[in-house]
């Protein structure tokens, strides 16, 4: 692991330990009350869920253009994080919505596009696992769709009729709500980098293992 990995892991762990205290001290929201505090973990998860398919899509485009295996490995790692953070977002969102909107789910543009994005992440992983030879390029093409879906997920709340809060909520947050949110976003961003590093390390080790098997056969 790189030198910065363990200090960053400790910092991330400490931030996750502190975050409940900051969240508990944040004021309740006037209409949603206590349940809005799901936001402090829901939104950072959702942002990582948007970042991961972008990395996956850009790396896949590079892999299709240049054919370098490290781009493919980065795309695979990012696809797994897409599924992880997508699952966290799609579970915490309905838990919040049940109390705030009175329903677990609505088929609006934001939620539906998020579900589609998450399923594209699954499609990528299933293709890589069971697709056989040539599945790397096919999965890379799937990842492009996942990346194109990201701006649609982000902006959909501003253009379509929905009960999901628009993107203007974040810049207009009062400091008492914004400070814990940005703290959590930082913690999730560090965690994302750490998980991505670990996942890439796994792919590198697998590549090394394949090379060793070939060397043993020769």
């Amino acid at each position: 692991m790189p030198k910065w990995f363990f200090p960053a892991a400790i910092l991330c762990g400490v931030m996750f330990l502190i975050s409940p205290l900051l969240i508990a001290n944040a004021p309740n929201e006037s209409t949603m009350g206590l349940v809005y505090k799901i936001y402090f973990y829901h939104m950072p998860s959702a942002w990582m869920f948007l970042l991961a398919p972008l990395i996956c899509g850009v790396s896949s485009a590079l892999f299709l253009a240049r054919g370098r295996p490290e781009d493919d490995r980065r795309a695979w790692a990012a696809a797994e994080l897409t599924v992880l953070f997508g699952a966290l977002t799609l579970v915490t969102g309905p838990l919040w919505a049940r109390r705030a909107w009175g329903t677990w789910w609505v088929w609006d543009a934001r939620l539906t596009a998020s579900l589609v994005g998450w399923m594209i992440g699954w499609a990528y992983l299933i293709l890589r696992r069971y697709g056989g030879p040539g599945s790397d390029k096919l999965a890379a093409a799937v990842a492009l769709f996942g990346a194109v879906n990201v701006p649609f997920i982000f902006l959909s709340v501003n253009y379509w009729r929905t009960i999901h809060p628009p993107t203007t909520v974040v810049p207009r947050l009062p400091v008492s709500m914004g400070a814990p949110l940005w703290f959590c976003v930082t913690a999730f961003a560090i965690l994302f980098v750490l998980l991505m590093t670990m996942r890439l390390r796994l792919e590198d080790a697998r590549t090394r293992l394949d090379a060793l098997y070939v060397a043993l056969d020769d």
Partner: protein
Amino acid sequence: MIRSALRFRTFTRVLLLVASVLCCVALPARGAAYQQPPPPQDEFVAVGDAPAPEQLPAAPLLIAAYVVVLAGLFAYVISLSRRLGGVQRDVERLEGDLKRRAQR
């Protein structure tokens, strides 16, 4: 002839089953589509310590959300560490095998 009739009957049954499942899913959704959703919330307003009136208890949902996130992340880190450890052990074993073969 009999076989094709049986196939057709099975196909019709499957079709009916699919149609009834679709009806069960689509009809409530159609009804829900006519309900006017509340207007979107443009900004979050901080309030003092007094919570807003709540019909559904918020605390279990809040706790469930945090438990899901932390448990999910923890499970993924454990899974990743185990996979990484397993592959690294295999790499070390094969490197040892290669070294022994080279010495022979």
